């Protein structure tokens, strides 16, 4: 793909994300943005609409944007670094580890007193998971990575369940279970400010990996000979992905498959170039999560369908497809 087409793709994704962001601000159970405009123009219900848009819909739209972009970017970076299209934060256990960190923060009550501990412990969880996975992925193949991810997910799931079953407050436990299904409902701008520094750090670290991921296409030996500092690159990807996934999970719970579906769909459009995949995956992730969140609001069910459930329903068929397609790689590893 030539740079002009890449530029066009970027512009198209920026446009799509902007439109979906606007739609996200406009759609909700109380009515559409059009009615808000009419009411506001007529001077009716000014306070109510201001409250709905600024306090309810804006934080939600911003979180969908930030969380989606972070998950898309983290997925594309991990796949580029591990040279494996199945390396998605949810599949390989990074999100579960982040959720465990967040549950510890919530369960122990520390998060109530010091909110910043919530993303910090989630990041610590995902950092631990990425650090364990990377050497395994380097030595083994796709199968090793997935099995290690299953082991990490199972362990984190068991520890989370243990924390919940030891809880003296069943309502708090239920709340945590719902939170873990992944949702950005009932969040405030305070949640956005809480995670923004961490995701900004993660985006910055992952953006710095861009050109080096392309050099890794020909394997680590060639990358080193081309002047890539592999140890520095590993550090950038580990910390960057951990910040993105940890911070996103801290406020939104486990939202899986965004980092799998988005890079997979966009990879052919950037000529399979691992570096160009990063910015488009961030935009695509934001667009996907904004769209999924709008769908969740439009589905009229008694209690809102969780966002993580929607992304899983979209993502699992992709995962199966990728597993079937890469079965030769499984046999080889």
């Amino acid at each position: 793909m030539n740079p002009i087409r890449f530029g066009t793709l970027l512009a198209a994704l920026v446009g799509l994300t902007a439109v979906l962001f606007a739609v996200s601000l406009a759609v909700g159970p109380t009515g559409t943005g059009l009615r808000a405009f009419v009411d506001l123009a007529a001077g009716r219900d000014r306070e109510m609409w201001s409250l709905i848009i600024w306090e309810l819909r804006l934080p939600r739209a911003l979180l969908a944007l930030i969380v989606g972009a972070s998950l898309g970017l983290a997925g594309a970076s991990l796949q580029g670094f591990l040279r494996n299209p199945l390396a998605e934060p949810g599949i390989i256990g990074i999100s579960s580890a982040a959720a465990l960190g967040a549950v510890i923060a919530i369960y122990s009550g520390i998060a109530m007193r010091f909110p910043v501990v919530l993303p910090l412990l989630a990041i610590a969880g995902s950092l631990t998971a990425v650090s364990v996975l990377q050497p395994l992925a380097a030595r083994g193949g796709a199968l090793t990575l997935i099995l290690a991810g299953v082991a990490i997910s199972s362990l984190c799931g068991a520890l989370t369940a243990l924390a919940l079953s030891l809880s003296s407050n069943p309502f708090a436990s239920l709340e945590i279970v719902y939170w873990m299904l992944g949702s950005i409902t009932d969040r405030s701008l305070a949640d956005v400010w809480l995670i923004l520094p961490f995701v900004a750090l993660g985006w910055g670290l992952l953006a710095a990996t861009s050109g080096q991921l392309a050099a890794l296409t020909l394997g680590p030996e060639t990358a080193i000979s081309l002047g890539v500092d592999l140890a520095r690159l590993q550090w950038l990807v580990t910390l960057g992905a951990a910040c993105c996934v940890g911070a996103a999970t801290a406020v939104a719970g486990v939202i899986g498959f965004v980092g799998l579906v988005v890079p997979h769909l966009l990879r052919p459009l950037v000529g399979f170039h691992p570096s160009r995949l990063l910015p488009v995956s961030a935009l695509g992730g934001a667009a996907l999560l904004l769209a999924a969140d709008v769908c969740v609001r439009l589905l009229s069910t008694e209690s809102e369908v969780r966002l993580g459930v929607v992304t899983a329903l979209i993502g699992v068929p992709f995962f199966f497809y990728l597993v079937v397609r890469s079965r030769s790689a499984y046999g080889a590893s």
Partner: protein
Amino acid sequence: MQLDVDSLVVRAQERVLLDHVALSVAPGELVGLIGPNGAGKTTLLRAIVGSQRITGGSVRLDGRAIDDFDTRARARALAYLPQDRQIEWPLPVSEIVMLGRYPHRSRLAPPDARSDEVATRALAAVDAAPLSARRATVLSGGERTRVLLARALAVEAPLLLVDEPVAGLDPYHQLHVMEILRDTAHSGTGVLAVLHDLTLTMRFMDRVVLLHDGRIAAHGAPADVLTPANLRDVYRISTLEGINKSTRYVLPWSRLDNGTPT
């Protein structure tokens, strides 16, 4: 640029992989590095490139220790085609060759016109210009080797290190790749090539270094290194020799067990 390796020692997990190895490659020279499996050929190339930790000795480029070069300067000085020909993503061939320009580009700058020109020339040098738009993962073995060689040539480094460049290729493509390496050397690049094919080594190399158990067993002109005695001691084989159009050739003929043919 002159490459000098002096008293190079590489140890890994208490095993000595290279034991006081010395060699040099001058500009315009095509040097063959041969030896049985496990002799330390790939380790030597990796030590020169910087992907294998050196225990002792030195690697110098034009008299300057290689550790004094920053990673990008080293990458511009030494191009390397590893034994492993992996290509992970189905990038177009033109993009694969363009990766050779990585050490010349600032991280955020788009490819410049000169890089495009160099990459196009490198593809033409290996007779792979028509493959430019093809996906790199669907190439045949011969095409893949030539494309990856073009990627190494696109670095425009004064030194080129290639590990088993003809492995898995049919005779036509073996000769083709050897001719490319000879032409590259004749254009002023110093080339160090790991080879298993003794016939091609005899035919194409200016000088040969024979490694055995991490040590240099012999070095010099091909005819002085590829002697029946050296090949018997190091490879445990007997050979057939002949002359074709005033060029000597050597063919591996039979295995020897304790000095007798098996």
